[in-house]
């Protein structure tokens, strides 16, 4: 976790570079005509000027929504690897469909893919029911086995005479620009059925996902619900293959849904966010693919959704990694400042508050740090308005040779910290019965987190003590006012 926190700025930089870099790269790729061409193509994509662009935009957005919706159920039911297996398992079906129709006939491909997907799931069920092979291993076997068959068949096809312009390799990595109007119909129908299913069975899906045995006990047919979900998952994958490809299809199911899981705590908003992010990813991926003129869409879709995921992971409210890092850094700085102030106080105290200033050398040896760190700490006090410095003599301004005095605000703060420390030590010895030589280390940590309320409470329990276990004064506001301890030069 800590390492990750340290990596965080770097990661963010990477994302930023990617964000800037991709259009640059595209411009170069498109690039014989240079920069204008890039903007021209961008405009052409978003103004939806020609039909092919319209199909791509509509298709990839709808695919994103379908995958986002089904993906929510895949992720919350821990079926991520199942989705991946299913998407790889349909590949041999696509190849066989092509061999059978001897061309890229949509119906044949669809039938082949569905059959292969069904066979894949049957293999999984068989392995689980009748053997001792563990689930993750079974998924691995089926995934790689079916995929291998698919690759062999595809290679054969490419060597046949009708296979040359088959364009079947777009099923491997995805090619949104190859989407046809018939594809669009398939995508639309799938989305419609998925939405209808979720709308009607929302509650049943919720309850079977959360608590299967309870769901069964109130008479929900969890198994048939599961099968419908699998079937829709299969359709969702098959219809999106043209755009995203077999290899990365599961990414669009998983990444938007996981991103949503970082943000929300209820299923309905989960679905909404996941679908929106899915649409974004689909659209973004096909846009970059369009700019890149034939770059495979699948990887680009994955990059866009992974980019969104990293962004959300770092910057989501309260729990974002970057936000956390920022607060922990702020805290560390505060603790440093408080320790410096305490050291200043203790130096002044060791001279019975005869002087109102200290020199840097004294602070260095008290804190046990070198001159560079000491200068940094002093600078931080000055920045926070807690201290001022002046050179030891007006002529000489050597680093580490200056004289430090606390401002009234710094003085009050220092007293507060010392007070916290000593009150806590006293509390530990008097109330928690610690030995006096055991309390210092604990107080070193606690002094920074004691709030005003706790201090009031401690004062009450200990009935406003004056001395700590080591016999030193516990400084209070009244002490400062009464002159029991000398205040530093007030303004």
């Amino acid at each position: 976790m800590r390492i990750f926190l340290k990596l965080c700025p770097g990661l963010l930089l990477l994302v930023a570079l990617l964000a800037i870099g991709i259009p640059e790269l595209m411009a170069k790729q498109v690039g014989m005509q240079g920069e204008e061409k890039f903007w021209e193509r961008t405009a052409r994509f978003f103004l939806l000027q020609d039909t092919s662009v319209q199909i791509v935009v509509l298709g990839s957005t709808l695919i994103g929504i379908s995958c986002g919706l089904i993906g929510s159920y895949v992720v919350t039911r821990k079926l991520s690897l199942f989705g991946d297996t299913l998407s790889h398992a349909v590949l041999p079906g696509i190849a066989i469909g092509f061999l059978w129709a001897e061309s890229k006939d949509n119906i044949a491909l669809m039938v082949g893919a569905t059959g292969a997907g069904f066979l894949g799931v049957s293999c999984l069920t068989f392995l689980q029911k009748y053997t001792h092979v563990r689930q993750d291993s079974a998924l691995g076997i089926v995934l790689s086995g079916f995929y291998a068959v698919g690759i062999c068949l595809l290679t054969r096809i490419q060597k046949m005479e009708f296979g040359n312009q088959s364009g079947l390799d777009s099923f491997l990595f995805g090619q949104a620009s190859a989407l046809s109007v018939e594809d669009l119909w398939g995508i639309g129908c799938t989305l419609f059925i998925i939405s209808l299913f979720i709308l009607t069975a929302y509650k049943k899906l919720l309850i079977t996902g959360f608590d299967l045995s309870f769901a069964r006990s109130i008479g929900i047919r969890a198994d048939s619900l599961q099968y419908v979900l699998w079937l829709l998952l299969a359709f969702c994958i098959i219809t999106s293959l043209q755009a995203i490809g077999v290899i990365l299809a599961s990414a669009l199911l998983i990444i938007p849904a996981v991103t949503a899981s970082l943000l929300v705590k209820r299923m309905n908003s989960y679905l909404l966010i996941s679908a929106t992010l899915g649409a974004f990813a689909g659209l973004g991926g096909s846009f970059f693919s369009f700019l890149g003129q034939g770059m495979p869409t699948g990887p680009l879709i994955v990059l866009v959704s992974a980019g969104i995921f990293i962004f959300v992971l770092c910057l989501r409210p309260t729990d974002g990694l970057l936000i956390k890092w920022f607060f922990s850094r702020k805290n560390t700085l505060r603790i440093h400042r408080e320790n410096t102030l305490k050291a200043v106080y203790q130096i002044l105290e060791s001279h019975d508050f005869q002087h109102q200033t200290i020199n840097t050398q004294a602070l260095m040896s008290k804190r046990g740090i070198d001159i560079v760190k000491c200068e940094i700490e002093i600078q931080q006090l000055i920045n926070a308005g807690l201290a001022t410095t002046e050179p030891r003599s007006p002529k000489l301004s050597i680093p580490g040779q200056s004289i430090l005095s606390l401002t009234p605000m710094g003085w009050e703060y220092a007293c507060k910290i010392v007070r916290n420390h000593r009150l806590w030590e006293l509390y530990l010895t008097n109330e928690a019965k610690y030995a006096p030589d055991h309390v210092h280390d604990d107080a070193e940590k606690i002094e920074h987190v004691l709030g005003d309320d706790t201090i009031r409470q401690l004062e009450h329990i200990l009935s406003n003590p004056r001395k700590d276990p080591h016999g030193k004064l516990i400084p209070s506001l009244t002490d400062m006012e009464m002159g029991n301890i000398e205040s530093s030069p007030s303004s």
Partner: protein
Amino acid sequence: MNSLPYPIQVHDLTVSYQRKPVLYGVDLEIEAGSLVGVIGPNGAGKSTLIKTIMNMVRPNGGFVKILGKSPKAGTKHIGYVPQRESVDWEFPVTVMDVVLMGRYGHLGWFGRISKADKKMAHECLEKVDMLSYGNRQIGNLSGGQQQRVFLARALAQESSIYLMDEPFVGVDAVTEKTIVSILKSMQQSGKTLVIVHHDLATAKNYFDHLLLLNMRKIAYGPTPKVFTEELLQKTYGGRLTVFSEMASQAAKQPEIEAAKTIGE
């Protein structure tokens, strides 16, 4: 026999997992309005008995009747509280969502949750002292709080029979007291409750009937009668070795098993 059917009747029930018998020839008749504790050592078949009554596990022999009906028709009269670990606590639902699930049995396919359902869920959460947590995601609760949410869901079901699987596991002392007092008030309003329990020390005070189980029914009856040293010794003092060996042998013979199902 009573004129009214027993809430739960189990007759000569035998259940085995992968040919290993877990329950063997169990007879049980639970009367309406009892608060029954099911106790026995680990692996005695306590959860299996509950699951078989709930029709989640198929018996090899014997039968279960719920209010005189077959389990398939009868389970909807039962409020079931599964073991806490059997649930995915990271699931994106809030406490209120979970309690409302108790009302789902009363809704149809397109049934919407009515205001009355919501009010009811509210009251149930209040009864278990969890009302202020209604909007929390369930993953942010302690073990005791999770169990209370389960209890609230069971209350929202308004069933006449309740089966609970180890509701006191991983629960703090305060929650345990709350749960017991709620169980007792449920019993007073005429519900029948069967609760799997693991702690012998408290069993005596919590339940008015006890079922001592160790693969077989050792004893069933009112707590003072059953909670005797002799019977407890019989339940916990090692298995009946010869008996369990023979039972495993018998279960491995397919023809015996087949004969049994035909005989039924």
